[in-house]
């Protein structure tokens, strides 16, 4: 077989195939439910109600979506430049650490939130700077270095929680001193369990979208990602663009950790993120790397997680079905995107 580019893919092809990928994922979900001995339609229904069936469920889904929007944006920005940042997990924790460092009394009230947010972004950006410089200077593959940094970061957090940041009142649980009230993100509406982090995440998506479509930096990021050789030939500072991209990407991922600590948990613990950094890759790919699409897919992915939790309690299908579905969706989606651009021909 051979792949032949399609000159002008029809809208049916461009939209139909990604939809087909999602439908195929649903098919896999039903198959897994059958394997687990449950009624496939009931399982799908329970996932849907678990995610969106009540006001509480919706708020839980949106809360879960918040860090995913940030990590999804981080990945979308980086992948656009073909900078393979798989280290959003570590950058998330860098942001969380900053939230604790500045939010536990080191800083007075009016400034603490904006300053800690900025510090978080700087922390995340700094963490990605190393791998990107190793890539531009020495040609070291950033996938492996960012992956390895995730493990180092988790151990560092574990060290902080047992040492310098340990909560004296934590009764042996590995968690940090809680944030002072001024350092907490308030709720958007009183009484509803949804914090301003969600609104900030949407704002971030809009900002990223504006950067990508309206600014010279966005133009450069896309050019470097599509064809670094042509970008260099045209006079773009390719390495500088990659570094700027890394700073933006690392900063966005760090905001995920910052908003989880400042908005939701109020303290740092080593289970702060159940893999939000890795899930961000799925969120970004499902959104075809479009920043506004990331908001939609992050809510979708969060809904699958929240819904699967609820479904698992009711139907007895392991909650890991959510991880399987998302990995399946990712693989189906990359194949679908390819097939919108090429057709498979004989010979």
């Amino acid at each position, binding site marked *: 077989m051979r792949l032949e580019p399609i000159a002008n893919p029809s809208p049916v092809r461009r939209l139909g195939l990604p939809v087909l990928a999602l439908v195929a994922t649903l098919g896999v979900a039903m198959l897994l439910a059958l394997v687990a001995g449950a009624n496939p339609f009931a399982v799908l229904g329970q996932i849907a109600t678990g995610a969106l069936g009540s006001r509480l469920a919706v708020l839980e889904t949106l809360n879960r979506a918040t860090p995913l929007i940030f990590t999804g944006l981080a990945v979308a920005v980086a992948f656009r430049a073909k900078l393979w940042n798989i280290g959003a997990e570590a950058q998330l924790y860098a942001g969380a650490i900053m939230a604790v460092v500045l939010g536990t009394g080191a800083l007075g009230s009016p400034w603490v939130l904006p300053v800690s947010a900025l510090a978080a972004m700087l922390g995340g950006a700094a963490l990605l700077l190393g791998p990107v410089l190793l890539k531009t200077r020495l040609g070291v593959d950033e996938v492996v270095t960012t992956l390895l940094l995730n493990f180092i970061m988790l151990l560092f957090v574990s060290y902080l929680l047992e040492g310098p940041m340990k909560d004296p009142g934590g009764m042996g649980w590995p968690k940090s001193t809680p944030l002072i009230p001024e350092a907490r993100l308030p709720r958007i509406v009183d009484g509803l369990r949804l914090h301003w982090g969600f609104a900030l995440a949407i704002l971030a998506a809009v900002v990223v979208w504006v950067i990508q479509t309206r600014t010279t930096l966005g133009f450069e990021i896309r050019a470097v990602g599509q064809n670094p050789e042509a970008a260099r030939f*045209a006079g773009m500072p390719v390495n500088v663009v990659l570094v700027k991209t890394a700073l933006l990407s690392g900063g966005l991922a760090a905001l995920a950790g910052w908003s989880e600590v400042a908005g939701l948990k109020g303290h740092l613990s080593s289970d702060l993120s159940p893999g939000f950094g890795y899930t961000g890759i799925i969120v970004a790919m499902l959104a075809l790397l479009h920043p506004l699409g990331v908001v939609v897919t992050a809510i979708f992915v969060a809904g699958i997680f929240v819904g699967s939790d609820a479904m698992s309690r009711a139907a007895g299908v392991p909650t890991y079905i959510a991880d399987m579905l998302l990995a399946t969706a990712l693989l189906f989606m990359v194949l679908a995107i390819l097939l919108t651009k090429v057709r498979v021909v004989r010979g």
Partner: protein
Amino acid sequence: MTPGRTEAEVVLRLDGITKRFGALTANDAVSLTLRRGEVVALLGENGAGKTTLMNILFGHYVADAGEVEVFGQPLPPGNPRAALASGVGMVHQHFTLAGNLTVLDNIRLGTEGLWSRSYGGAREKVERLSRDFGLAVHPDAKVGRLSVGERQRVEILKALYRDARVLILDEPTAVLTPQESEALFATLRKATALGLSVIFISHKLHEVMAIADRCVVLRHGRVVGEVDTHATDKGALAALMVGGELSLPRAEAREPGAVLLRLEGVSTPGRGAAPGLQAVTLELRAGQITGLAGVSGNGQAALAEIVGGLALPASGRILVKDTPVTRWTPGEALARGVARIPEDRHHQGSIADFDLTENAVLEAYRTRFSQRGWMNWRAARGFAEEIISRYDVRCPGPSTRIRLLSGGNMQKLILGRAMAGGPKAVGPTIILANQPVRGLDVGAIAYVQGQLIAARDRGAAVLLISEDLDEIMGLSDVIHVMSEGRLSPAFARGTMAARDLGLWMAGQKFEDAHAA
């Protein structure tokens, strides 16, 4: 004409081969026969369908219609292995060699069953073939370190090692000096004397006349003529090949102006097999086309990088209008009026999935199409539309992705972008044209060359780099030759014969000049 040749056994028959790529018909009912011991030339312009036809024969593509017969047996389509087994060997235009492996490994790759344990007598056979066909090359050398001519010998040995009875050579002389081409022809004559048959793909008329017995001419995917080379001449072949459509522009001599760009003793480090520049001194004058001839891979790329702002010399100076430059980047070169037409329009000159607007502003988006970091897409689009209309870029509109354009239209957009003059909207004063017409059809070639001449007549200094001697001799006011990173003195147009140019290209004259 040797009596009996027409009665010699038919070794290869292509019958009614048709191949379409989307709307393009690359081969339209092409038929061809090849007999034992003869050389048939397949002649045609770029894009005439020569390479497609041979890729079908060799099983890289499957034809939509038609049949291939080798030694009377039908050849199953789409199967290179079957083609090899039937005795067809192909020497591709772009060599298919693994650089990190030895000559011997490259030759015996795939010749034994994958599950067998070892090779018997491979080295002896390679050494014997080298001797018999005059193809000297060391079996244990890494291919990555060989010269282009040596690599071609490895390619031919690969085919001979598999006992090929039919050799197909796709534009084999494109990368050779005239003298190396002579050596290749000697090898081919030995091969036909031993009963092999050869298909020789080319668009160079004098070579076809020199080596082929018969010539099949392709135009727009169709066979437009089949002639005995002993019974024809270059003019007749040329008319068949281009269909008498167009004659290429020839530049008339003109009085040169001031020196606009000067390289003084510029040297650069080599990169792998590619040599760096060795103390190159070059002057580009206003109102003059300076042609740079040479076999590809002799430092032209390094020189183009220096002129285009992509590299800094390790030693030596660059002077623009008598001012030495200190910072030298693509942006700086553009700002000083250097326009660049890159060698590789697909990988360097354009971004395939960007639309025409985005490609048009690639070099000037910072200075002319944005304010304080915000893109001015309205102005960018207007600029693209201007290029499209002024340079006759055939396309649905400025939002078309550039990958959908033909090579010629793509090149016109790049040309228009370059002529619009980078950061400032004044025309360029120095133009670097690196292989500007490679792979284009005749009409586009005439257009691009005409634009270069027009720019010269407006007073621009043009550096034309090409491997095609005819192009260099037809357009240049002065000619330099490069060999292994060294630059020959300048020769005024018409003062040197092709044969002498060949000796410079082979490096021979550099040695003579050094000794003298």
